[in-house]
């Protein structure tokens, strides 16, 4: 029996080795990538290279020039759910839909609105009518022409009560929508609505395939047809999605021929795949960025990018509680929290202090707001003014007999937030405030604590909006159960500015109003704004054309390329 086991093991081992040696080409190619990636030698070990052979024999003078071909392999922790854009809200579906479909407008690298399917547009003087002039000669992936009727159909679908979409809100503001001719689409609003323009970046869906059919059971949810730079090829549920470049894309055929989206639920596994060449692009945690990707070989094979991300983390106070109602108390807490040390400890220095709800490089960011550098003395003073002092000598300040003690709540699964809570707990201990940190599962957290306002303070994060409108999170009307102003902040002056800014298209005026808004928030401190983390990514160094900008790096994905000699995967362009 023992002999049998040994024999079995030997057979298994032998089989594994044989299986490996059967494909020397592939293995050699993947091994060879590491040292030769930066050396401009023609990579001979490509599989059946037909037309590519001649280009490689001569030492190419076109070494680093844009070339078609190759594939980009990306990892995601979740699978997409539905490839009809308005029916899903998860980031994986959104990633794919962003490549398969187009909207009327989009953001360019400086976060200015530019045309996508719309060539140009006019906004009437009273701000009530937007007229889009659409591109001509755009085709759907199945060859049918794109017209304004598709836009009308998309709009109708968004407002249809039978469509299970979460995003109809912006479109309910529309008073009238009209197709003036095949390439002109006009929308009239009840009142000037600044976020209107960017709301038309929603993905346009094909009328000829969906009209008259039930959108929920449409095969398009598994096999999308769009007008975007990539066409859908295949979706193996739970494993991968494959997209191919669209040769007829109206903005020019993308250089990278294939987009391979791999579903790898575990981040550790994803990192290993990245290191062994199975992935070309991955978002990194601060730890990975700073400490685990330092080796020479990694830096040769990958380029790391760092830019300000589109989110900020904050400590929110429940303003219904008497404890947090005095502004001096909130200001004191902000002085007492050492935000820089949170960035050092939690983000390993890869982030910036947040002073308000906007990205530091956004056009509405007010650099002149009141700042709160770490100053525990000042904090103590302010607290004293508010009536808090340690009268019973137990180390915790108190007022009217009750000690200053509260619980910070945050959601399970986010290491950074939990660590931030612990640092805050320590900071506040120094000035005599007792803090407990509690972690709750996400669904319960939202339903039982946030919605019901059953919390004292929370650590959470928001994504910074692309349009600066703050209505949904900060307006006093949004404080009902389930709405986003869950800290119950009501400031009529803030309301006024938010409303003014929302209903004008005048860039300068909006900037003025939003500057005021930031001043008010900085003075009031309804949140202690903590930090804006850096987005950290790495992309395989064989890809050229990546330029970090305020919009990030993905805005020009269709212009990225791998020069011919560096291409790894043989994909017919």
């Amino acid at each position, binding site marked *: *029996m*023992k002999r*049998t*086991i040994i024999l079995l093991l030997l057979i*298994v081992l032998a089989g*594994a*080795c044989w*299986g*490996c040696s*059967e494909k020397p080409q*592939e293995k050699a190619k993947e*091994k060879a990538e590491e040292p030769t990636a930066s050396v401009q030698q023609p990579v001979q070990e490509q*599989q059946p290279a037909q037309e590519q052979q001649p280009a490689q024999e001569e030492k190419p003078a076109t070494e680093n020039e844009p070339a078609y071909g190759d594939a980009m392999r990306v990892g995601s922790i979740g*699978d997409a*759910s*539905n490839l009809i854009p308005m*029916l*899903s*809200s*998860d980031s994986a*579906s959104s990633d794919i839909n962003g490549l398969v479909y187009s909207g009327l407008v989009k953001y360019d690298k400086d976060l200015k609105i530019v045309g996508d399917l719309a060539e140009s547009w006019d906004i009437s003087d009273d701000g009530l009518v937007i007229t889009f002039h659409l591109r001509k000669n755009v085709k759907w992936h199945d060859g049918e022409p794109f017209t304004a009727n598709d836009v009308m159909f998309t709009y109708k679908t968004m407002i249809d009560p039978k469509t*299970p*979409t*979460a*995003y*109809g*809100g*912006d479109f*309910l503001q529309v008073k009238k929508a009209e197709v003036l001719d095949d390439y002109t689409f006009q929308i009239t609003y009840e009142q000037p609505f600044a976020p209107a323009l960017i709301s038309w970046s929603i993905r346009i869906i094909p009328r000829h395939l969906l009209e008259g059919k039930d959108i*929920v*059971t449409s095969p398009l*949810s598994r096999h999308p047809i769009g007008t975007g730079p990539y066409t859908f090829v295949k979706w193996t*549920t*739970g*494993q*991968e999605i494959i997209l191919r470049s669209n040769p007829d894309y109206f903005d020019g055929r993308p250089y990278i021929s294939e987009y*391979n989206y*791999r*579903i*790898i*639920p*575990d981040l*550790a*596994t994803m990192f*290993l*795949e990245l290191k*062994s060449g*199975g992935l070309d692009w991955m978002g990194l945690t601060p730890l990975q960025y700073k400490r685990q990707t330092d080796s020479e070989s990694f830096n040769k094979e990958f380029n790391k990018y760092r830019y300000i991300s589109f989110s900020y983390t904050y400590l929110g106070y429940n303003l219904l509680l008497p404890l947090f109602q005095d502004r001096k108390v909130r200001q004191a807490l902000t002085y007492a929290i050492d935000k820089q040390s949170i960035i050092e400890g939690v983000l390993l220095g890869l982030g910036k202090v947040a002073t308000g709800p906007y990205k530091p490089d956004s056009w509405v960011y007010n650099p002149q707001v009141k700042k709160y550098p770490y100053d525990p003395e000042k904090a103590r003073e302010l607290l004293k003014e508010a009536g808090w002092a340690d009268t019973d000598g137990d180390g915790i300040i108190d007022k009217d007999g009750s000690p200053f003690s509260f619980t910070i709540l945050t959601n399970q699964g986010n290491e950074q937030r939990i660590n931030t809570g612990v640092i805050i707990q320590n900071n506040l201990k120094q000035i005599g405030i007792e803090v407990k940190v509690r972690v709750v599962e*996400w*669904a*319960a957290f*939202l*339903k*039982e604590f946030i919605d019901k306002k059953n919390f004292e303070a929370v650590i959470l994060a928001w994504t910074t909006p692309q349009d600066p409108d703050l209505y*949904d*999170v900060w307006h006093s009307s949004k404080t*009902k159960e*389930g*709405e*986003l102003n869950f800290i119950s902040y009501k400031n009529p002056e803030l309301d006024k500015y938010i409303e003014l800014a929302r209903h004008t298209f005048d860039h300068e005026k909006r900037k003025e109003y939003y500057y005021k808004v930031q001043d008010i928030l900085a003075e009031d401190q309804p949140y202690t704004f903590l930090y804006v983390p850096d987005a950290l990514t790495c992309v395989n160094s064989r890809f050229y054309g990546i330029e970090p900008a305020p919009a990030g790096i993905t805005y020009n994905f269709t212009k990225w390329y791998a020069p011919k000699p560096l291409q790894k995967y043989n994909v017919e362009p």
Partner: protein
Amino acid sequence: MIPLLLGITFISFFVIHLAPGSPTEMQTMLDPKVSMEARARLDKMYGLDKPLPLQYWNWLKRLVALDFGRSFSPDGRPVLDKIKDRMPITILINVLSLIIIISAAIPIGVLSATRPNTLFDKTTTIFVFVGFAVPTFWLALLSMILFGVQLGWLPISGLKSYNFEQLSDLGKFWDYTKHLILPVLISSFGALAGMSRYMRANMLEVVHQDYITTARAKGLDERTVIYKHALRNALMPVVTILGLSIPGLIGGSVIFESIFAIPGMGQLFYASVIARDYSVVMGILVIGATLTLGGNLLADISYALVDPRIRTRR
């Protein structure tokens, strides 16, 4: 059995609804672009605004027609389709795992029992307990680093390589096997301990029985005594364990599947619970419950078949 099944579905339904949050809430909460009206609309569409007992009754009515309904997640696919996507790979890995466990545990158990307290026995005991104690995900990551990143012998995750389509049929078979080697071996490693200890204990008990002494006295060689007589008797409980492990066949370990990026039942169940996707959760629970009850029945029957002593006890 039917009342038992009904009871199980009843309890499961109400327990999953006890957890805060509903599928539509999970998709729309804390999303600035979703209005309260939109959320109410979604609720109505899915019938989530009806009273709970009515929802249960509706679900039960459809179940009787073997209609498991559609998933509440945005893909809206029929529950059976989602389960059918993932069952085969989970069953395959579990079956392969079971084969390896049995073919390794039985010999180890037998040999440990026939040579109790020898070096062999002691080392295998330590070995299997190490396997039992080691967290499988840690071992998985270590072996991925060793065999995948450093030696490059085996793929790191997933079920097929990038160039799968271009391979010959034999190539495809090998590719698939290579991808399965690590998951199957590592998932068996942990369970090996239990099975082999159980085998050892059974064997030890049997070997001390009178009829074994008789067999030896008769003059039979040791080989026949052990492998023909003792083993057969010691195997009986193992057979029943097989029956009881049938429901385990469709259950996957979510941690394990996540690490190896294998789209199996474990991940489906976990993700559905987190998203409060009631129809998928109920579908999996019903299938699991049916299999458990069936497996139990099978185990009872097989025990009676294999052990004549039980049969006669009417």
